[in-house]
């Protein structure tokens, strides 16, 4: 209905291969980005930043990471929580060991370190496939969490075993620590997430993404047409872990401020992010955002609804909430197993041919 595609013809491959070939999509995305950067910072409060926007953005980034591995490359992973922890602890160690290091560099290095760990745990993927691999990734999950619990060097021998972020500035703005303003943390996170989302989209639609999808759709055929499975999978593991690592660093340093491995990076975290990409849509960057939004918003909504709306006991409502969460997830899987991104795409197709039904 809103699309006006007549006259939007492409005279070069460059314009045909553009990120958003349809002008209306472009305008919409630009509008959303401008709103996120220029409007929200003026109205943001602590509650909005910490309860909604930061978790949304950070989980979206982690979901993009997992989507690269699972959605694009077809390698089911249950180790996301562990990789988040690697990113978090890497950033903690970097910040405390090198207090002068630029925060951006800290985050990038945290991502790189996680990527290396990811490659290490990705090696078995050559021989192990499907659910076997999924279970194998649990090994990394448990091992990493155990490691950060047991080796005091990782938490600088703190008595509690927790890690707490030191306050750090970037361009004179305080980004980490309890005194950082919500607008700054939000903008910092938004900038990183936007950039990395764009990069992920570029990878996904190019040769790298095609080789991932080839492995995902039919690994034998992919190998026969000359795609090297191990190399392709390892790249996916590396890139995926890089994203998750940065998300872990953000989660710890910018959002939570302090963390303890079993709580913040446990297997529930792995499942949460897996749900995000399944409900958002496998193999879709947009879906990663949608899934993250859904999984961040739903518990808040359910809690508000039951505690404030129905006046249930918080403890009781928590059980009901878990149950409803499960019900909603199953409902979603049944109604649209391809996720919110597919719904969005269907809606878009409908709008493009409006008023025609097909």
């Amino acid at each position, binding site marked *: 209905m809103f*699309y006006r*595609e*007549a*006259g*939007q*013809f492409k005279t070069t*491959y460059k314009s045909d291969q553009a990120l958003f070939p349809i002008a209306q999509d472009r305008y919409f995305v630009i509008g959303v980005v401008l709103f996120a950067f220029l409007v929200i910072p003026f109205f943001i409060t602590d509650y909005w930043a910490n309860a909604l926007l930061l978790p949304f953005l950070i989980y979206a980034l982690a979901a993009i990471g997992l989507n690269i591995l699972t959605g694009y490359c077809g390698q089911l992973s249950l180790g996301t929580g562990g990789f988040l922890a690697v990113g978090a602890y890497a950033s903690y160690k970097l910040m405390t060991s090198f207090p002068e290091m630029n925060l951006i560099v800290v985050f990038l290095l945290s991502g790189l370190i996680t990527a290396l760990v990811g490659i290490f745990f990705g090696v078995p993927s050559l021989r192990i496939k499907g659910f076997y691999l999924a279970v194998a990734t649990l090994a990394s999950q448990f091992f990493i969490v155990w490691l950060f619990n047991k080796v005091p060097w990782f938490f600088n021998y703190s008595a509690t075993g927790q890690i707490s972020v030191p306050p750090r500035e970037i361009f004179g703005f305080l980004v980490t620590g309890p005194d950082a303003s919500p607008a700054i943390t939000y903008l910092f996170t938004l900038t990183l997430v936007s950039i990395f989302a764009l990069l992920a989209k570029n990878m996904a639609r190019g040769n790298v993404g095609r080789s991932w999808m080839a492995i995902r759709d039919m690994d034998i055929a992919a190998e026969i047409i000359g795609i090297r499975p191990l190399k392709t999978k390892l790249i996916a593991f590396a890139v995926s872990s890089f994203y998750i690592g940065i998300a872990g660093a953000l989660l710890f340093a910018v959002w939570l401020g302090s963390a303890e491995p079993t709580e913040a990076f446990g297997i529930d975290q792995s499942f949460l992010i897996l749900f995000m990409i399944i409900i958002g849509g496998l193999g879709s960057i947009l879906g990663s955002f949608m899934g993250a939004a859904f999984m961040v918003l739903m518990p808040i909504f359910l809690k508000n609804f039951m505690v404030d709306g129905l006046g249930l006991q918080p403890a009781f409502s928590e059980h009901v909430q878990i149950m409803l969460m499960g019900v909603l997830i199953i409902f979603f899987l049944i109604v649209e197993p391809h996720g919110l991104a597919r719904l969005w795409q269907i809606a878009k197709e409908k709008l493009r041919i409006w008023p025609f039904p097909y």
Partner: protein
Amino acid sequence: MPAKGVTGQEGLDTFPKLLLHNARTLPDHPSIREKDLGIWQSWNWSEVLEEVRALAIGLQKLGLQAGEKIAICGENRPRLYWTFVAAQSVGAVPVPVYQDSVAEEMAYVMEHAGAAFVVVEDQEQVDKLFQISETVSCIRHIIYDDPRGLRDYQEENLHSFKDVQEKGRKALRDAPQAKTGWEETINAGKGSDISVFLYTSGTTGRPKGVVLSHDNVLITARETAILEGLRPDEEVLAYLPMAWVGDHIFSYGQSYVCGFCVSCPESPETMLQDLREIGPTYFFAPPRIFENILTTVMIRMEDAAPLKRKLFKYFLGVAKEYGEAILNGENVPLKGRLLYALGNILIYGPLKNTLGFSRIRIGYTAGEAIGPEIFRFYRSLGINLKQLYGQTEAAVFITVQPDGEIHADTVGVPAPGVEVKIAESGEVLYRSPGVFVEYYKNPESTSETKTGGGWVHSGDAGFFDDRGHLKIIDRAKDVGRLNNDAMFAPKYIENKLKFYPNIKEVVAFGDGRDMCTVFINIDLTAVGSWAERNNVPYASYQELAANDLVYDMIEAHVDEVNAGLAREPGISGSQIRRFLILHKELDADDGELTRTRKVRRAFIADRYAPLVTALYDGSEMTHIETEVTFEDGRKGMIAADIQIRDMQTYEPPTSMEAAQ
């Protein structure tokens, strides 16, 4: 690109001169595009100049002489368009040939024109040419655009387009003065030089080669471009046959005059998709295309969800009520404007866009009569669709509907520089700068058509209505007289009836008889779905055709036509007095229709003589047996009792009423 009109073109009286001019004034403006390999490959004017120059010199190197003919055959392709101007630049005459014509037709045209060179699109035409090479001795060289499948062809006189251009480029490198020499030849050209031969696909007899000069084409193109305010930034889709005069004017003549860009679709099958992508601002289509698109729209909407269908219906109603008035700039109540604006957001805008019509500033239709309903439908959506009347012999434009004076049933007023008059016999005569030079090698026909004072016989019968608009009613030779001397134009009456979706074919009788009567074929799809909706059971066409309710419905249509005819001076006498619905569908296999689905009136009158007799002897029922050919080729007899209905006629309004 600043939009500018067509001015300052004095002295630019040939296509090659215009090419040089455009390459100078609009070097970076796109000249032509082609959907190929997934994108719209584009050439700007300076690139086109280079391509054409290389081709022209290359053709010369192959031995093309001034005055020789070069046949062009294929779908709309940039290289084929370039061949026109390349040929013209060296004084040769391009002769476009319909690409779908069978080998003999092609052979006839090439032989008749004496084509020395042929430029074709692909292997299909090359094969056709080899097939006819025995009979056509004049062809010296064949040049093809698309090399696919032609690798193994060893014939010496077969060249690829690229090779010819490469020859030209080499010559230009070897002798740089060749370029100036070429430009000098161009500048020596005159507007009165022969520009093109366009063969008319005559319904009878052999095609005739209409010879047009540069002046013929360019003056007409320029005048009408000024009339419509065409600019260099128009977008045009070139999808009609290149051998047809319309395409020659709209996609070639006006493109060179205005400098606008022409886009060639990927293939005929993808035309609608390509139309949507390009979103032309200036668009021509024969009525049948508009008709097909409308049908598709309605069929697709049938499958929409009920709510959406209701919305669609409602806003089409709004459009019908206010749309045309708004387009015509008339006074419309605020409510109407608001509703229409809402409809534009919800329905018309997206609909036009999906069809590729949303950017149309000027849309033309011509060639045959367009159904008023269809015509109004498009206009009510806010598409400035207009009718025009033209002929190859006039370089298209004879009359055109001016903005703000659009009537569904006329073809407008004389185009700029055109004089039109109606002969005693009712035939339309015209005189204009676009009038052709002659029929090639056919002085007899030339003199029959072009008579004293430069007046050309159009061969069509028509009249000016009280608003000064021309109405075309029929081919002049088909127009007859009833016994009371009232004018009888069978096709006009038939068309009026055929505009009803329920009616598929009509055969009108009346010439040399007392009154006008008609045979009617109902449209099985339309009436069939009506029958389903109204629980009218039927097993066959024959049963449905004999149904009383169907007769009632058709009677209402005939009555409306009569009422309309009564208001038209000159033909109000030929209102329909009696009609019947034929018991079988007219069929080309039975010889009742031509292959292009035109009714063969005389044959039908003969075959169904008892029915014709019955129409005139006053009987209310008649019996007939007819031999038919079934789909598998077997023949058989069908018999039927056919009902005949009498109709009442209307009095023509007095002049007082007519004036209102």
